[in-house]
């Protein structure tokens, strides 16, 4: 409750700026955050930001007050309020940011904090699912948005929105323009629940009602609309911009309102009408004429006022009666007169009845579609259908809950406490007040429309425009809407009358996508990570062979003719002996033979060292070889009897891989040794060993002096190996006995 003071204070501060911003001034401040990356925290308060900021702080204060009572007695409210305040702050940051990256940061923060708000009832599986759905969709769109914003920044050469909007032409030529636009649109569509991403919003009704009232009517879902409005000076007129917004906005709008009237859950009705309203806004932005922008700006405010109010009312009803089913509710007005009045006022605004603010908004909408150049009958009828269904929905929300049939409730409802009533009451009063005295808000909305559509004609809201096409349309809508409501009212099974196959719903597509993603993840992982060591090894060796062959194809097969030029018998003998021993090691059927042959190979290597002037190596090799064989013998009798034989085909495949590998290595050695070696090191060691290193055995001098660091490392390896072997052998057997060695 006390928390409500923060947004209230911010609201008051904003109001102090009201005059100057309405006058067209821009309040801004900036702080370099990460200049290396071109990111600053720069804030910018113009008409559009002001409109949103007022909504965020104003409704925020009301919602916090409301939630203080609503959430009483629920668990972990402190975490809840923490998330809510975080959300509020980030939402405010979003609409005030001028730097597109800091805007994005706040954008993501709203997704983040809303995840926790939607998942408040996290022990409930559905709640978790809804929260995740909302998170994944908005964050997925966020990724597109990030790419889009960066492209925008690269194309426009600035990260500041206020500069970018002035560089529309420059951007249009940059080639990144269309990509940036598409990506930003995707981001906004996900956030603002546009078709086909709309379904997360109704699911998000799993959140406590104050959250829905705040996030899902007035603020978060409008962020997408806000950003579209913000960038529309850049994209207005671009190919595809209008068409995309019109088509998707239109579908969302009509679909949303149609589904809304088929619902019985109060919050679901509100959610779908919100979806529809967001579609309407996107569509208006898509029309993009001066008048459409005005309509959009007005509708943003109108919708926030009545929808916020209705959500709060729904919360009160739910709270006091324990039910949100409109078929079970009814005649609550007597017990809840204040709530009922607020709801009725809000519904009238929603239905677009004068003198409420919603009426003005509807007039402007009609005006903008009538003024459209192309397709106006189609858009007009879309508006008409939506308007009609809005009227019906308004009837459902007010008449069916507060009047109409007797309710089927077990408990006797009573009016909510004042703290909960304040919110809906204030919002309802505002709906009336701004409708009658639209001049109060006119300058601000005018500024906002100027921001979205630079050079727009001044806005001049009036309740009464005289009798014109818009008014006639409006009235017809009303009549049709009442008829629609009657139809809904007397057909309680409307929902089941129209069967829509699950499979064509986007939510089904989402589920399918997530499932198939999980499936794909599983399949790929099982294939790549199948648990067979030999497959891993062959992947490694195979990769090497492929890469090496690609490189080696530029080189010819080295010349082998020199091979027999200078041969000595014992060389050949040793070579052949080693090859044979190696062969026997490979094919031996007994462990002992294999190890004996291995020893032969090892001593053979030592012999090679002797031939080529490396006595130290030979000595070491011989000693090591002996030790290895001893080691082997020590552990051999603990090892499995030889050997499991693989099937012939696999064996053959492995044979091919290893033969190829061997051949490549031979090829490489011959290739490299066919070039002369730059031997500046060799010469230096030859000369310096005795005078500088005080030793005649150059190899030893290198080991203990010139490159003694290597030797140090080498002995560390040995020491660790000893510790490791000790641990391997003793760990299980003598776990905690005191150790003697």
């Amino acid at each position: 409750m006390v928390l409500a003071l923060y947004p209230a204070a911010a609201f008051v501060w904003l109001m102090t700026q009201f005059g100057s911003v309405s006058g067209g001034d821009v309040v801004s401040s900036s702080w370099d955050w990460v200049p290396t990356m071109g990111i600053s925290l720069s804030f910018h308060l113009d008409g559009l930001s002001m409109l949103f900021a007022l909504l965020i702080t104003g409704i925020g204060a009301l919602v916090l007050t409301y939630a203080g009572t609503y959430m009483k007695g629920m668990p972990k409210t402190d975490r809840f309020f923490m998330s809510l305040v975080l959300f509020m702050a980030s939402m405010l940051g979003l609409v005030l940011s001028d730097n597109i990256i800091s805007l994005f940061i706040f954008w993501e923060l709203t997704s983040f904090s809303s995840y926790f708000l939607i998942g408040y009832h996290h022990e409930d599986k559905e709640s978790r699912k809804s929260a995740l759905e909302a998170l994944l969709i908005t964050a997925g769109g966020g990724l597109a948005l990030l790419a889009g914003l960066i492209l925008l920044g690269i194309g426009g050469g600035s990260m500041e929105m206020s500069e970018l909007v002035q560089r529309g032409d420059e951007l249009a030529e940059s080639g990144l323009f269309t990509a940036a636009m598409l990506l930003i649109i995707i981001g906004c569509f996900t956030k603002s629940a546009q078709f086909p991403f709309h379904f997360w919003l109704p699911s998000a009704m799993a959140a406590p009602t104050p959250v829905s009232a705040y996030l899902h009517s007035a603020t978060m879902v409008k962020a997408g609309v806000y950003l579209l409005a913000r960038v529309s000076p850049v994209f207005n007129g671009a190919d595809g911009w209008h068409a995309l917004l019109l088509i998707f906005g239109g579908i969302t709008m009509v679909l949303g309102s149609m589904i809304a009237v088929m619902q019985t859950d109060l919050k679901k009705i509100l959610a779908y009408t919100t979806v529809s309203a967001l579609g309407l806004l996107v569509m208006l932005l898509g029309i993009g004429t001066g008048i459409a922008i005005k309509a959009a700006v007005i509708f943003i405010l109108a919708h926030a006022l009545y929808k916020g109010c209705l959500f709060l009312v729904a919360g009160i009803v739910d709270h006091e009666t324990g039910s949100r089913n409109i078929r079970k509710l009814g005649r609550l007005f007597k017990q809840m007169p204040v709530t009922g009045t607020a709801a009725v006022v809000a519904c009238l605004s929603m239905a677009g009845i004068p003198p409420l603010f919603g009426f003005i908004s509807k007039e402007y909408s009609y005006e903008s579609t009538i003024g459209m150049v192309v397709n106006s009958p189609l858009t007009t009828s879309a508006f008409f259908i939506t308007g009609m269904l809005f009227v019906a929905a308004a009837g459902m929300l007010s008449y069916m809950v507060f009047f109409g049939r007797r309710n089927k409730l077990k408990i006797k409802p009573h009016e909510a406490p004042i703290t909960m009533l304040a919110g809906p009451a204030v919002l309802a009063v505002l709906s009336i007040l701004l409708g009658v005295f639209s001049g109060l808000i006119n300058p601000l909305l005018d500024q906002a429309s100027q921001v979205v559509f630079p050079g727009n004609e001044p806005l001049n809201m009036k309740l009464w425009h005289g009798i014109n096409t818009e008014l006639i349309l409006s009235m017809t809508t009303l009549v049709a809407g009442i008829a629609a409501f009657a139809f809904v009212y007397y057909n309680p099974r409307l929902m089941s009358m129209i069967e829509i196959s699950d499979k064509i719903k986007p939510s089904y597509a989402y589920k399918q996508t997530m499932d198939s993603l999980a499936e794909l993840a599983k399949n790929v992982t099982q294939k790549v990570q199948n648990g067979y060591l030999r497959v891993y090894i062959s992947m490694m060796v195979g990769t090497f062979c492929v890469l090496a062959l690609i490189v080696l194809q530029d080189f010819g097969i080295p010349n082998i003719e020199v091979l027999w030029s200078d041969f000595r018998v014992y060389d050949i003998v040793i070579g052949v002996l080693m090859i044979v021993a190696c062969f026997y090691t490979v094919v031996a059927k007994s462990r002992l033979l294999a190890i004996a042959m291995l020893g032969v190979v090892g001593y053979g290597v030592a012999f090679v060292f002797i031939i080529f002037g490396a006595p130290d190596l030979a000595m070491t090799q011989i000693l090591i070889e002996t030790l290895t064989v001893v080691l082997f013998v020590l552990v051999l009798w603990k090892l499995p009897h030889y050997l499991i034989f693989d099937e012939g085909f696999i064996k053959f495949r492995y044979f091919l891989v290893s033969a190829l590998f061997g051949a490549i290595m031979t090829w490489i050695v011959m290739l490299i040794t066919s070039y002369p070696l730059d031997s500046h090191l060799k010469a230096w060691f030859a000369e310096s060993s005795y005078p500088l290193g005080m030793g005649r055995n150059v190899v030893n001098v290198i080991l203990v002096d010139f490159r003694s660091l290597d030797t140090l490392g080498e002995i560390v390896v040995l020491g660790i190996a000893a510790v490791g072997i000790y641990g391997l052998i003793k760990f299980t057997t003598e776990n905690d006995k005191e150790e003697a060695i």
Partner: protein
Amino acid sequence: MENELLLVLLIPLLGGIFSLFFWMDVKRQKVVFLISTIAMTLAAINLMRSVLENEVITLQSGGWDAPFGISLVADYLSTFMVLLTGIMGLAVGIYSLGDMDRARMRFGFFPLMSFLLFSVSGAFLSGDIFNLYVWFEIMLISSFVLMALGNTKAQLEGAIKYVTLNIMASIFFLAGIGVLYGLTGTLNMADIALRINSVPDEGLITLAAVFFFIAFGVKSAVFPLFSWLPASYHTPPVAITAIFAALLTKVGVYAFIRFFTLIFTHESLFLDNLLIFTAATTMFIGVLGAAAQMEFRKILSVHIISQIGYLIMGLAIGTKLAITGVVYFIIHIVFVKTNLFLISGIVNRLKGSYELKKLGGVYHTYPFLALLFVISAFSLAGFPPLSGFWAKFALVKAGLVSDAYFLVLVALATGFLTLYSMSKIWNEVFWKKKPEDETNLEVETLKKERAGINRQVLLPVVAITVMSVGVAIWAEPIFYFAEMTAEQLLNPEIYIVNVLGVAQ
């Protein structure tokens, strides 16, 4: 100056040696380890200070001029990696004081950790390819032993694969050293960088690069060479996994960066494409692996792979901005990934399991732990304003500036799947109610809960979280440093001149 460099290596080495003298005396080993790791971190800070002043510090071991002896080189990148090594060693060390079982301590856990830190720092500082091989081998043997220490069935199974595949990688490494020496007749990296231009055919250099690609590819766990990692990383106690996750694959990546900015700088379409392919597949297949797992630590381990993909992506793009992103990304994942591992360990202490199915309800009972997890997990998923966002942002921007749209697409999709896998953990471990059917486990759990969180295990987690949030909020100095590092890496002359004295 050169002794400042010496200290960061000498301290952990002496720490390890003295721990060996106190064999089986766990108490003294603890003290030695703690002192030496703190001292090492301080020495690393000191070295960083000094490197910031002097750009590059070189220690010519034995006083022999390069390229005849072995050079140890501290430039921005390597110093920064050493500093991270110190910090993570200290953090994980403190954690293990509270978490590691006594038996493992008695069988050399502390000296092994010291040697591991010693070898990792050595690998970062080495300026000589064969010497680098030696550091790799010390690192390998100590990680082998740490991996297997305890002889549980899972550990041994994992260790056999880990050991085999890494020995194979060493074989490629050694062969690669042979090829490079055979081509240039020298081992000093700076000297090679100079002489590689006179190799008769650039194809030969590419051939050498293939060897190192395999060797470092295995160490850093890129596709299709990463198989050892999912097979083994989750098997030892969590402190060991955490230090491996923090450092070992990063050494591979470091070697990649070093070799591909210093030595293999010739124009090669083949290598460019190879890196791009590797980056994309590693990112994506890695994160798919994480999405498929249902065990806390396995998700985290497999996920390491996808982040290596990001780092390779930066290297593949190769511009200054991209390398800057890579440097920042390294800080980010080292902090965040280590932290997540440690948190999984704490959850295991509390609830007695790593299986998502058996866990639940942690958010309810341990909100603070949940908060720590949320910060790290969402940071990993790239949520702003946490460090993961900056890391992703820099790389994505670098990709878009350089028209690497394909890589950016994969990177973003990977980010999405990362979010998916992290939220899976969050859902199952923290939000979900604890499954009630296993009553026996419950009793056991209660017993464990009393031991539960102690100061030693919580302190490092909190500290790392603070640091990771710190580098996000104060991203500017880090990015500034990262940019300097990138600049230094992209101008190898600085390195060469400093190591060889003068350009020859």
